[in-house]
């Protein structure tokens, strides 16, 4: 048993979700300022499909996380650092769940249903209501800025571990990382 590294499933989910989030974020940012056009409606739909995909992957990821032990952090890390890392990860999970849900709420309140991949109709979470639609739009956006901030912190922390602490923390999340 190798307890210094996440297993293949966790690593695959981490990177798949990371790539999807970067794409969904960039697409969301791009589309929000577009003038209304068929193109905009298309991109909105694709953004929602990507977002729902992330949501499903994250639900599976959380299930994985709750049913598997995580590798112990390097002994060189202080207790506070470990706590900080745990809290950051917890908030990343929270945002990865609440961002898709607020997007879905925003859509529902706008009276626009979500049909995942133009194939699976999702139920409307709430009735059409313009005020709520605007509110959830704002919340969806704000949570995205929070996510951006946390991800920057998260990546900065990884780089610090890699280049300053030189504890090879990144290897724990790498497919080809050496096992200590």
């Amino acid at each position, binding site marked *: 048993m190798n307890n210094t590294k996440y297993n293949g499933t966790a690593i695959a989910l981490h990177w798949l979700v990371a790539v999807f989030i970067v794409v969904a974020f960039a697409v969301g940012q791009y589309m929000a300022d577009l003038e*209304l*056009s*068929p193109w905009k*409606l*298309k991109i*909105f*739909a694709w953004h929602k499909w990507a977002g729902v995909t992330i949501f499903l992957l994250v639900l599976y990821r959380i299930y994985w996380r709750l049913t598997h032990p995580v590798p112990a952090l390097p002994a060189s890390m202080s207790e506070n650092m470990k706590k900080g890392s745990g809290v950051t990860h917890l908030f990343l999970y929270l945002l990865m769940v609440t961002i898709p849900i607020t997007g879905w709420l925003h859509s529902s309140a*706008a*009276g*626009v*249903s*979500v*049909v995942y991949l*133009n*194939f699976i*109709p999702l139920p409307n979470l709430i009735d*059409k209501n*313009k005020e709520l*639609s605007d509110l959830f739009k704002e919340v969806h956006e704000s949570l995205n800025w929070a996510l951006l901030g946390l991800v920057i912190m998260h990546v900065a922390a990884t780089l610090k571990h890699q280049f300053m602490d030189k504890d090879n923390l990144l290897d724990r999340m790498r497919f080809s990382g050496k096992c200590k």
Partner: protein
Amino acid sequence: MTALYRTTLIGLALLWAQSASAAVLLDKSEIRFICKQMGAPVEGRFKIFDADVVFKPTDLPHSHAKISIALASIDLASDESETEVKGKNWFNVTHFPQAVFQSTSIKALGGENYEVHGHLALKGITQDIVVPMKIHTLSGMQVAEGSYSLMRTVFKIGEGTWADPDTVAEEVVVKFKMILAH
């Protein structure tokens, strides 16, 4: 005696006339629609409309309905889409502020089912249409409900870049519910 008889008759006739021109309770009635964008249903409605309806199941030849919809009162997903849909490519409300349905005849299909034949005038185009309708009574009031599948390009709703039915589907389902008070 005859005087009393006559007054009663006049009174009855007045009552009859009143019940004949049932007033539509506009604030309880609704006109909604569902269109599809990228395969996903999008709901909307018209907040302002006028309805002049006379409906007597026992006297269909004298029953009729005229519904006028103020298109600018549309309630859609966002301010942006409302502005767009009032514009030239869609309803063009500055030139065509209203959609008007005027019935020509009403047929009983048995039970609570009826068929309303009439013309729909929208964006300068008039078409003969047939609208299925159900009538039932709810605490003493008649409720008329039905829906009509409108093909938007027939009325040039969504022109230019919007004509492509892959983004906004051809079919728009218009649903109405009219509450008639006697």
